[in-house]
């Protein structure tokens, strides 16, 4: 008790030259240092925030944002808010629909409305556009009968349920779509029909292909990492260049190389034909399929496995193995019980890194994937550039991103980002 009291009084007595308590002066100096460190990081952080984090946020928001119907069919959206979803809506709603469609056609937004609705109910596109063309003939009531006369779909409950469902400006429909689910007419979530279940299949395929690539890089990378770690430095420096060269070579160059090597009129097939292993008619399709993609990705990602493995193996002292063997362990037993467990951090680091990079691959599958080698990134690109269903692209992207972030978090926990190294 007395000790503590003494120290506090002693502290209070210590002051700097200008009479400030030392403790406060120290705290101030520390704070200044912290601020200075932060100021150095800030320019990059602000830049990354605006040109990377915010854009990613925009993409996340796109996956739930759904303003199109509410903005372009405002009257209908309003009327449908009152509708209980039973039977078909009342005359006022039909009147609103006729008014909205007239405006939408005049402002040329009707095509986008039709496209948006078609994502949820295929075939509704033509109902909207056809009605849009004829709706100007309707000048007075009864709207209901006239609209149903133009297209009988307006007398069906499912049409109205679908429109009501896409009126909220925030929606989860894109996510349902991204996992091959949809809402049925009663609002229950059901799986889409077998032949339309493409996204879950793609996620699974992406997972399996990345897994295969990870295992393949581990199997191929382990022996050479071991070799590199256990030979004299001047040899290993030389061989390391063979590992690093692919790392520095353009991805497109390496993808081109694999096409040249593996295609049916390619080098490997030619060699097999010339040496008589196969006939000219039996050329094997080695690329433009899933297997070709896996082969190319394995070679491209192999350095990311070898480097962490190598840096861990380099730290394992050879005396461990000698100790085990001198105590009577057979070479293989010593290897399995002593060496392998010591390499686990390297295996974990390499595998996580390769897997993280593999799940997001786009270029290689796009160029050599053919039909069955496409991965989730490729369908995202398709919806971004071709089908223009950006909401669905964003939902698929968000799911992929969630997976990658979870793995990155795991990597950070287990290995630490500051341990990432190249070359």
């Amino acid at each position, binding site marked *: 008790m007395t000790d503590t009291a003494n120290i506090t009084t002693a502290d209070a007595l210590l002051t700097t030259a200008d009479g400030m308590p030392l403790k406060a002066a120290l705290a101030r100096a520390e704070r200044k*240092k912290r601020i200075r460190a932060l100021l150095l990081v800030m320019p990059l952080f602000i830049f*990354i925030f605006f040109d*990377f984090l915010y854009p990613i946020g925009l993409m996340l928001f796109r996956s739930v944002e759904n303003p199109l119907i509410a903005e372009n069919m405002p009257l209908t959206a309003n009327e449908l808010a009152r509708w209980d979803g039973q039977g078909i809506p009342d005359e006022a709603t039909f009147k609103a629909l006729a008014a909205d469609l007239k405006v939408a056609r005049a402002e040329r937004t009707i095509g986008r409305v039709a496209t948006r609705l078609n994502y949820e109910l295929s075939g509704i596109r033509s109902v909207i556009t056809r009605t849009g063309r004829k709706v100007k003939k309707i000048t007075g009531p009864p709207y209901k009968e006239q609209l149903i006369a133009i297209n009988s779909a307006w007398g069906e409950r499912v049409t109205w349920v679908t429109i009501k469902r896409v009126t909220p400006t925030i929606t989860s429909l894109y996510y349902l779509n991204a996992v091959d689910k949809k809402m049925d007419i009663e609002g229950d979530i059901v799986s889409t029909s077998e032949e339309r279940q493409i996204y879950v299949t793609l996620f699974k395929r992406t997972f399996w292909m990345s897994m295969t690539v990870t295992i393949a890089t581990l199997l191929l990378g382990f022996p050479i990492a071991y*070799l590199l770690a256990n030979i004299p430095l001047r040899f290993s420096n030389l061989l390391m260049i063979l590992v690093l060269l*692919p790392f*520095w070579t353009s991805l497109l160059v390496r993808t081109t190389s694999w*096409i040249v090597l593996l295609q049916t*009129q390619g080098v490997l097939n030619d060699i097999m034909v010339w040496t008589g292993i196969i006939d000219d008619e039996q050329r094997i399709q080695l690329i433009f399929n899933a297997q070709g993609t896996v082969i190319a990705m394995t070679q491209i990602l192999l350095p990311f496995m070898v480097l962490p493995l190598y840096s861990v193996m380099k730290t394992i002292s050879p005396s461990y193995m000698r100790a085990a063997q001198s105590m009577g362990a057979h070479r293989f037993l010593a290897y399995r019980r002593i060496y392998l467990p010591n390499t686990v951090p390297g295996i974990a680091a390499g595998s996580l890194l390769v897997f993280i990079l593999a799940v997001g691959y786009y270029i290689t599958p796009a*160029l050599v994937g053919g039909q069955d080698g496409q991965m989730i990134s490729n369908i995202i690109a398709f919806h971004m550039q071709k089908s223009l269903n950006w909401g669905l692209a964003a939902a698929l992207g968000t799911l992929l991103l969630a997976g990658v972030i979870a793995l990155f978090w795991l990597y950070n926990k287990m290995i630490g980002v500051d341990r990432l190294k190249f*070359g």
Partner: protein
Amino acid sequence: MIALPEHAGIEERIWHYLFIAICAFVFLFLIAPILIIIPLSFNAEPYFTFTKEMLSFDPVAFSMRWYNEFFSSEVWRSAVWNSLFIAFSATILATVLGTLAALGLSRPEMPFKALFMGLLISPMIVPLIITAAGIFFFYAQMNQYVQMTGTYLGIILAHTVLGTPFVVITVTATLSGFDHSLTRAGAMLGGSPTTVFFKIIMPLILPGVISGALFAFVTSFDEVVVVLFVASVEQQTIPRQMWAGIREQISPTILAVATVLIFISIMMLAAVEMLRRRSERLRGMSPG
């Protein structure tokens, strides 16, 4: 190579040679696909494979045809110019921003170090397609203030984002063994913070800065996804042209381009290796 002890038994010998064979196969797997491109790029015929004449080393089968095509084509020339301009600009930005951030991150007083590090590294981890899509949405939104899509500015800034993690990583790695008492000594001897930075810190971290810059350069030089999303016809880069060339597969010019790129990467690799060794020597981490 790994020496085989004199007394090695037959079983041990078999395993040893099997191991060497496996390693040789893996190295072949790594390198052969890259090297195969080089002779093919001298093909006199418009094929992506060896002709019979090439295999018998008939000089008629070889030509510089595809190199001529590459160097004389207007499209490729503008692609080279675009790639160099974009990569240089992005590299300068990424190196300055990344080095400053790395200096801050490696100070012991830096608060929330792990969080900042994670965020600043994330452009390297997030799948490119997601980054490209996000930046596309962002630029579309920005267009009403500054035209971003279809401009050099947009691509340069996007490539800067992708390049900075490499600079941050390499520079923090060089700073990891940095002796902070050196800066204090410099300050004590009367050096202003600027003098201390340029006379003491900079020479020590320079190898890391340069290799980070080279990584950033290569990242931009090789990037195609963002270019596909936000560039217009005017900003076609080398990888963008190669992408189109691979899809159409009409002319082996891409093989000539690939060969040129391979030589560029060999030079880059040599530069980085030299820098790494120099840095280790400077910091007294390795004798050689």
